[in-house]
């Protein structure tokens, strides 16, 4: 084996590079116009209005279900979009990998930015809506919700780190992942309430990471309660484990990423 094969590289301004990637990504997506920026904000907000209007016709008698559905759909949307862009992040930005040496995880993390912007707009819109209909959660509820979002980001980052390097080796991973997310939509209790599944199966549904995030968020935002301490500990451990596993796979495979492009 080779020894000391890592040459010294110029120190990288990680934050500067991350910011540049996020900014230019955003710019090429929305063509850098003011209208484009407004559109980025408007899209999730409009989506919220559309879903809310449709569901108030269909599920007029069950406001709880309606709110739960919206929370589930938006959190799921974040998971779907971010893991999809994360998976192709190294391949899409391959032109940088073959030209310079910098920590390549920056590309993966930067690719998640658009989904994060959408999710943040949704979170604000939803909280404002709850306040408007007089169901605003307390400060603790909001804090817990933000914690779940942070843990969700960690989970998504773990998935993306692993899939981005594996995708360079297995070029049909994106097709496979599409099927997995398709099935995952129904494994997570998004369109159906968890209660209709017999209790003994719940544990299996909770193994799919979006499930606990969606369920816990509903508890603090819609039901006004709090999950147990044990449930929180499990979620934190699970998020840390997913992230650690993703980071380990990334470490193992990212060093020859440029050779597999």
């Amino acid at each position, binding site marked *: *084996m*080779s*020894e*000391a*094969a*890592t*040459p*010294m*590289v*110029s*120190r*990288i*301004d990680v*934050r*500067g*590079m991350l*910011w*540049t*990637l996020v*900014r*230019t990504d955003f*710019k*090429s997506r929305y063509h850098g116009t003011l209208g484009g920026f407004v559109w980025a904000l408007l899209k999730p907000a409009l989506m919220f209005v559309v879903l809310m209007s449709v569901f108030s016709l269909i599920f007029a008698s069950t406001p709880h279900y309606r709110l739960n559905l919206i929370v589930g759909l938006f959190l799921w949307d974040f998971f779907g979009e971010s893991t999809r862009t994360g998976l192709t992040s190294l391949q899409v930005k*391959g*032109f*940088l*990998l*073959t*030209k*310079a*040496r*910098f920590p390549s995880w920056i590309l993966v993390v930067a690719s998640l930015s658009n989904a994060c912007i959408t999710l943040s707009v949704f979170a604000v819109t939803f909280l404002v809506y709850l306040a408007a209909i007089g169901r605003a959660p307390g400060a603790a509820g909001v804090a817990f919700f933000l914690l779940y979002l942070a843990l969700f980001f960690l989970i998504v980052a773990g998935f993306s780190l692993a899939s981005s390097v594996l995708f360079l*080796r*297995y*070029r*049909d*991973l994106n097709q*496979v992942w599409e099927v997995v997310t398709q099935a995952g939509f129904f494994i997570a209790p998004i369109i159906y309430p968890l209660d209709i599944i017999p209790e003994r199966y719940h544990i299996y549904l909770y193994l799919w990471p979006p499930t606990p995030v969606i369920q816990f968020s509903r508890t603090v935002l819609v039901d006004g309660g709090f999950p147990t301490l044990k449930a929180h500990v499990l979620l934190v451990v699970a998020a840390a484990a997913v992230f650690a596993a993703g980071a380990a796979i990334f470490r193992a495979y990212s*060093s*020859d990423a*440029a*050779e597999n492009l």
Partner: protein
Amino acid sequence: MTVIEVRQLAKSFLIPSAKRETLREHALHFFRRRSFERLDVLRSVSFEVAAGETIGIMGRNGSGKSTLLKILCGIYRPDSGSLHVRAPITPILELGLGWNPELDGVDNVMLIGTAMGMSLRQARESLDEILAFAGLERFAGMPLKHYSSGMAARLAYSVAFKAVRDILVLDEIFAVGDQAFRARCEAKYRELSARGHTVVLVSHDLRIVSTFCDRALLLDCGTIATVGSGEEVAEEYRRRLSAV
């Protein structure tokens, strides 16, 4: 002081006779033995570069020059051998190609500048200088897809010249742009060299190697065929080419 020390470096690429790139292929042919053709791009290459020295690497297409540069820059991993690089390295590799075509000149400067180790502030502050060096001030706001390939390459070199830290690695420099730009590049190179930067440059150009390089090595089929002064190696390269 030696800044680059390469000992018996080897690198080969496996070219599968039936390439498996997908999970489906891996699953279908799980029990079938995979056969590969081994392409030894570099076999036991050893050399040293002293601080402040300019070393040229010559060789025909496919002799392993670009692979060697990529290993020096840490973009590829060597299979065996050792490599010690004792100063920060700034690579200028395949720069004309494949930047982000949707973004304009300014954003591409920021992107590649930060990837090459400039801080965001440095990149912003040297923006005008970079555009001026490339002679592209008028086109700063134009998406790169509308640039000619020469213009894109000029921009790339300007960024890299500005981003350079200590060791500069140049792949086929002086081969892009028009006469005026090449003259600016040569002047820039002289300036950097005079300031004590170490330079590793790959070129097919006999004049470049014999004028600029203190030393040069000639790669042939993944091994070093000749080491000598710039003139000697350029002469040997010319002799081998005309012998074919």
